[in-house]
Each structure stands twice: as C-alpha cells, then as structure tokens.
C-alpha cells in the first residue's frame, strides 16, 4: 500500500473514531425510540394541562342548565365557547367564569354574511332585530327559544 494512502487511512480512522465518540456522548436519551427524534418529546408534549374541560364536566354541577341546553337550538355549542376555559373554575368555583353579556358576542355567529350558509345558521341584523335591547332579554342563551 502506498505511503500516502496509509496516512490518509489513519486520518480517516481517527475521524470516524472521534465522530462515534461524540455520537455516543451527545445523543439524547430516548433518541430513536420511535424514529429519528427524542421519544420523550411525546410524553413532554402530552403532559401539558388541558384548559377546556368540555360540557360533560360542567354538567356534573350545572346539571339543570346542561339539561336545558340539550333541548334548545344551542345544543351543539359547548359551554366553554361562551364562558371561556373552565380548568380553574372546576377546582375552585370562586374563580368566576366569563359571562358574555353584550350583543356583539351573539353577533359573532348570527351576523349577516353572504358567506355564512343560511341553512346552517339563522342570521339577523343586530340593530334592526334587537331594537336596542340586549339579546338575552328576549332569548335565553342556553335555550334561545323559551
């Protein structure tokens, strides 16, 4: 074997050795558990607290309102869309939920827009329809038709 090839081989072997050593010390735990990433990342991401607890949890204490809501047009709407996330309230009921009482809130969904399909959502003109009153004076938000 020519001398220059031998020298080059020594350099190569050294280089590969160092890289393998670095790989051993720098690869994080659980790497390649499922693929070319840290397997622990999955548990870290799923450990995050959920803020919306969903209607079934609210119904454990507010059963009459939940019952009322299932009979009205708003049955498909989660409590927390209107009242905000409930993860703190379910542990300590003194932490108040948001009570949306301005008309603008209802108009998020019910305002007139040609892009909203009429068959899916009934749309009204806020000023004309409510005549300056609050929506919830005439409609129960939990069951819009009483």
């Amino acid at each position, binding site marked *: 074997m020519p001398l220059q090839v031998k020298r080059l081989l020594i350099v190569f072997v050294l280089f590969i050795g160092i890289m393998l050593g670095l790989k051993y010390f720098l690869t994080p735990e659980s790497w390649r558990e*499922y*693929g070319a*990433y840290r397997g622990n990342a*999955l548990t870290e991401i799923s450990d995050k607290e959920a803020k919306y607890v969903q209607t079934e949890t609210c119904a454990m204490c507010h059963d009459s309102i939940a019952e009322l809501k299932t009979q009205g047009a708003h049955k498909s709407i*989660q409590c*927390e869309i209107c009242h905000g996330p409930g993860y703190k309230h379910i542990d300590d009921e003194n932490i108040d939920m948001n009570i949306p009482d301005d008309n603008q809130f209802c108009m*998020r969904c019910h305002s007139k827009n*040609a*892009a909203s*399909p009429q068959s899916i959502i009934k749309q009204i003109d806020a000023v004309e329809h409510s005549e300056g009153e609050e929506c919830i004076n005439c409609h129960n938000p939990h069951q819009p038709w009483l």
Partner: protein
Amino acid sequence: MAIKKENSSRRDFIKNSSMFAGGIVLVSLLNPLKMVYATKKPKGKGKWYGIGIDIEKCIGCASCARACKVENDVPNEPFFFRNWVEQYTITNDDEIKVSSPNGGIDGFKQPVPDDEIYKTFFVPKMCNHCAKSPCTQVCPVGASFESPEGIALVDKSYCIGCGYCVQSCPYGCRYIDMENGVVDKCTLCYHRLQKGLDPACMMACPTGARIYGDLNDKESAVSVFIKENNCAVLKPQLNTESKLFYNDLSQEVH
C-alpha cells in the same frame, strides 16, 4: 525514474469495487446506522389521525381560532396562528378577494355589496399533518417529527429555531414563538387527545364543520365523512399526502 504500475486486471477491479459496495450496504443495515424513513401508516389497529373540514357548514365565527389560541398559549397578536379562517369572495367580475382579519377573530365583513358577489364561502385552515411532510424532512436536528399516530410535532427543547421548516411548509402553518425563539405549530392538541378530549378547535366548532378521527378505523367520523363526501386536499400537486380533507373545496382556494 519509472513509476511502478500496479497491473490489476479489469476482473480484479470489478471484484474489488463490488465487494466495497456490498460492504457499505451491509453496514447500513446495522440497527444503529439504519437510514431515516418517514413515519409510516401503521398496519392493522394503530391510530392514524386525519381531519375533515366541511366548508358548507362553516359560518366564519372563528371560535376555533380563539379556542386554539387560549388552549395552546399562542401569542395574541396577529400572524401567530395554529388555525385560522379565511373568507373567499369571488365577484361577478371574476375577481377573487381573500380576507382574514386577525385570522377571523376580529369578525368578517364582505368587501363588496351582496349583488356583486358571484360566490363566497369560508375556508378554515390549519396544519394538514401530511404523511410526507416537507417540514419534518428539512429539520437539521430531528426536532420536527411525525408521531407514530401521524401527527407532525415539534420537540421544543431540541429545536434550534433555524426556521427551515417555517419556509418549507407549503400551507404556512408554522411560526417562530418569539418568547423562546423556537418553532411552534398545531399539535392537533396532542395533549388533549392523550387525555381523551377533543382538540380545542374541534370542540369549539358550533356547527360540526370540523371532524377528526382515525383513518385506519373505517367507522370513525372522519372515514365516514370522506366516504360520503367528495373531498379534496390543498395543493395535491405537491404530493405531501395531506391528511386534511375538505368537502366542497373550490378550485380558487390555495
């Protein structure tokens, strides 16, 4: 001075080089050196999440965009979105106007009077959780990956914030979280799925325009949705194998 010539025959050359090539293939089969493949759809029972969006049912209330921001601590300013709603308005003069005021959270207004509108509709957008996701392929450190369930996720403690993935996503679904300088994106609320809850945007939709489920289970909501409707994905020509299926998608949408 004469140079010593090694007189190797052609046969020797072919023999040596094919042995060398074969050796490399053999070594590459060793477990720790195995090549990197994308996550594959699990055969049999494993979950493989997909999403369905019914454009006919979207009323543009942006409850999904709001709920997502709250659930996932997404910065409140515009331009940081994991999911948002766009309003498409096509006028009688064939002009296409797209608007998305603060992702829809500020409320939609039609830009032209109703009698000038040829067609108008809302398109909710979010991460497509592609099976061949460009964003996970470009990550130089392996911080962007697909979970075994087919959800594209970011390992935030490993991300170096280089922003390659933000540029590579053809759907614009990633952003740099300014607080930590790392990338962030839709996780399909992985933390909620693992707890048996619905993703925040799915939960928040008042009309059931958003559907998700296991594509491997042919009885799941999303499988039934795809079966019963004529669905399309965004930018199919890019071959990203997007798993977000739109019903009634107009060709104007990009």
